[in-house]
Structures are given as C-alpha cells and as structure tokens.
C-alpha cells in the first residue's frame, strides 16, 4: 500500500494509541482509540455468547458498559437488535418520542445516563454473527460521512480481534490485512467445506481455519486455497492432514 487508505489511517490510530499506553493492541485499546478519534464519548463491543444473547467484551468507559448491561437487564436495545441479526442502527436523536417508542425501557435509562445518540454496527462474516460495535455520543446528531466510514473500519478491526480471540490467536503484530485477510472468496468456501468435514457450525469452522493458518504461520488465503483444491482436509480429531 503506497498511498494512505482509510484502513491505513485507522490502523495507524489504533497502534499509536496502544503504543502511547505501552500495551499491545487489544479490543480495549481499540475501543478507547475509537472513542478518542471519533466524535463519540464511549465505545463497546458485545458478542453473542452461547445461548446468552450478549456479553460485553470490551468498553472504553463506564458509560458504554453500563448501557450495554442495561440492555441485557431490560431485554431490549440497539445492540441486542443487531446481535439477533438486525441491520445497523444509527440513532442521531435518542431523546425523542420515536426512539422512546422503539425501546421504551432502554431509552429513558440511556438518556438518564447521558447518551443522546448511538450507532450500532454489526460485526459479521456472512452468516456468522460475531457481535456488535456500538458507539455512544453525549450530544445529538448523526455521524458525518467520513467519521461513519472510519467507524466501519474500526468495527472491522474489532471483528478481527474478536475472531482472533475466539480462535486462540495472539494479537496481530502488523497491519492485519495481509495474512489475516478474509476478504477472499476461497476463505469462505473453505469455511463451508471444513464445516462439513468436521461436522461443526460455520463459526467453529472459520475459527479452526484461522487457527490453523496462524499456527502454521501461513496466509489464511493460502491454507483456504489448499482446502478448496482438495489438497488438504480437516479431520474431526482436530488435525489437518495433507493429501486426500
């Protein structure tokens, strides 16, 4: 990448923030970096956890954790809506009748806590519902176009960190677009194939594929291409074997 793309810029912000704190890049430092960079006051990542609908994985401050947990308590809210498969939720004005009608229990408490706008972005890989990346602002107003686009990129990095954690992969050293890239079709085809080979769900299959690429230190797309070309199978005993 020679010129600066939005992804480069955002990744630069994420790594600089972690460096300034003297910690490796993590979900926590990423949420904090997003809250500092974007015109919002708090950022959280919640995921589906087994049959429990939501678990707050990380939050940039007490407000976001409080509001995420509030949704669990009252059983409604934007994050829950996204976690069960809804589209993104962008509410520029939380303190209004329309928002109240949408979430009658959540909104009054959220407004009370100081939230005036929220933006919940789904974290997904095809049918895999990984989680939700939610930003809370203490002032009303939609995110401007460029900030929204940056929020999507932050969410994309958050998605990868959540997936890494689930696959037991360590914190990425460099720009994760290289060998963690999952934008290529063979990665998703291989995921489908592995789910049949192992008799597991698609999310589990994706996790196994990523873990395998990581432990071998090889690009995800290369390992995936081998699976698609049937030069490699995944066996239910957790090992991948060469040849067929």
């Amino acid at each position: 990448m020679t010129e600066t793309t939005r992804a480069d810029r955002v990744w630069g912000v994420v790594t600089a923030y972690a460096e300034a704190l003297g910690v490796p890049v993590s979900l926590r430092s990423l949420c904090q970096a997003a809250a500092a960079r974007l015109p919002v006051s708090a950022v959280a990542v919640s995921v589906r956890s087994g049959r429990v609908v939501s678990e707050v994985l990380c939050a940039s401050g007490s407000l976001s954790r409080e509001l995420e947990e509030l949704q669990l308590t009252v059983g409604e809210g934007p994050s829950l809506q996204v976690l069960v498969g809804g589209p993104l939720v962008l509410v520029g004005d939380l303190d209004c009748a329309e928002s109240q009608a949408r979430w009658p229990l959540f909104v009054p408490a959220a407004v009370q806590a100081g939230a005036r706008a929220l933006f919940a972005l789904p974290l997904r890989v095809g049918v895999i519902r990984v989680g939700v990346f939610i930003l809370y602002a203490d002032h009303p107003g939609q995110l401007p176009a460029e900030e929204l686009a940056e929020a999507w990129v932050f969410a994309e990095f958050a998605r990868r960190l959540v997936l890494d954690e689930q696959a037991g992969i360590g914190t990425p050293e460099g720009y994760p677009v290289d060998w963690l890239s999952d934008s290529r079709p063979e990665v998703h085809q291989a995921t489908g194939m592995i789910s049949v080979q192992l008799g597991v769900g698609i999310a589990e299959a994706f996790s196994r594929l990523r873990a395998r690429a990581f432990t071998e230190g090889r690009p995800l797309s290369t390992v995936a291409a081998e699976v698609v070309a049937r030069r490699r199978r995944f066996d239910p005993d957790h090992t991948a074997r060469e040849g067929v």
Partner: protein
Amino acid sequence: MADDRLTRTFVELADTLVAGFDVVEFLHMLVDRCMELLDVSAAGLLLGDSHDQLRVMASSAENIHLLELFQLQNHDGPCLDCYLTGEPISHPDLRVAADRWPMFAPAATESGFRTVHAVPMRLRSQVIGALNLFHTEPNALAPEVTQIGQAMADVATIGLIQERALHHQHVLVDQLQTALDSRVIIEQAKGIIAERHGIDPGAAFTLMRVYARNHGQRLTEFAAAIIDGTTAITKFLPSAPAATPGV
C-alpha cells in the same frame, strides 16, 4: 437486433429492481447480460469495501484463475485505476502493458486476455466499484461496447443503491456492506455444497442459482438456509453436474 436485445435487457433489469431482488443474483444476471450483449470474453463486477479493497461481487465464470485476475487488481490494474480515479480505463494490448501494471498485465496475458476495459460504478461524486471487461483479441473493444458497458455499470449502481432510500450517507454504507456480506454468505454455502457433493465451488454456485430461481427463493436467503441446515440440498442433487476437474 442488438438494440432490441439491449432494450429488453434494460426492461428486464428494471423489472428485477422493482420485484424485490437478491443483490448477488441481480449482479450476476447483469454480468451474464454483458456477456451476451457485448462482444467480450469475460466480465466481472467489483465493489470497494470499507478498507478500499476491491471485492468480486459477480463474475462471468466462477473459475479460480479469473477470480484471481480480478483480485490481483488490489495491487495494480485497470480496475484499481478506475476505482481510484473514477474514470474509465482501457488498454488495447496487455502484452505491452507491463510497465503500467507490473503484476496484472503479465497475469492477464498468461490467462489469454489481450484487451481490457474498466468502467466506474459511480454514485454522484463517489466511486463504489468497477465493471471489468476482457477480450482475448487485441484492440477488441469498440467505443459502443464501452458505452453500453458504462450503461450496465450505471444499472448495477442503481440496483445496489436504492436511490429513494438514499437520504443519508449511512444508507449507502449499509447497502454496500450488506451486498458484500451477501456474497460471503453465498461463498460459505458454495463450500458446503461443494464438500457434500464432491463438486467444485463453481458448479455448486450454478446449482444454487438454478435451485433458488426455480423455487422463487432469493439466492442469499437460500444460501443462508443451506448453512443453517434448514434446506435439504439433496432435493436437487439428481440434476447436479459432474465436478469439473482442474478448475
């Protein structure tokens, strides 16, 4: 004659837009029509994601070499140039284009292509992707071909972005993201079908399209049902084509 077909194509595409369509199926139909209407050897439609990476949404053949050729253009190539500048980009002979596109030109030549053309998918001032056309002969894309190509790219843009819903930038971002996500769902389902029935992903895709169309189901919803295990795919196995070796 060509004009008649063109008119019919646009009417058909307009109908699809009204009828409530599946975005991936729609884009594939559009690429299929490109192949019929335009004298081209291969066509593909690419969208930019939030990382500004170009991702293939539809391609005239689901073969790995062609897909690779589209994907390669995240490094260099006419699609990348077109996406970055918003201008149509052509080259009449890829054999002498290695200076311009050091990775793409040799790979495309190797695959047997000589002429290349990329037209932007543009929404107002924003470029959201590109339509890529290939021909195996040099100097093979007439001006009217590129004009029609641009018209097709415009239809694709309109199909992707439902203008009347587009009051805000966030709707655009959401619709693009949803389109990219649909494609991922279909790839996951292709893998499942390919593995279950010992066929290659390209053949699995053809099966899915035929089945979804015959049953009046949206392609992406059908793919999601395959992944959920709520659709018995054995139902359409008898018509399954044999695996194509080496693809």
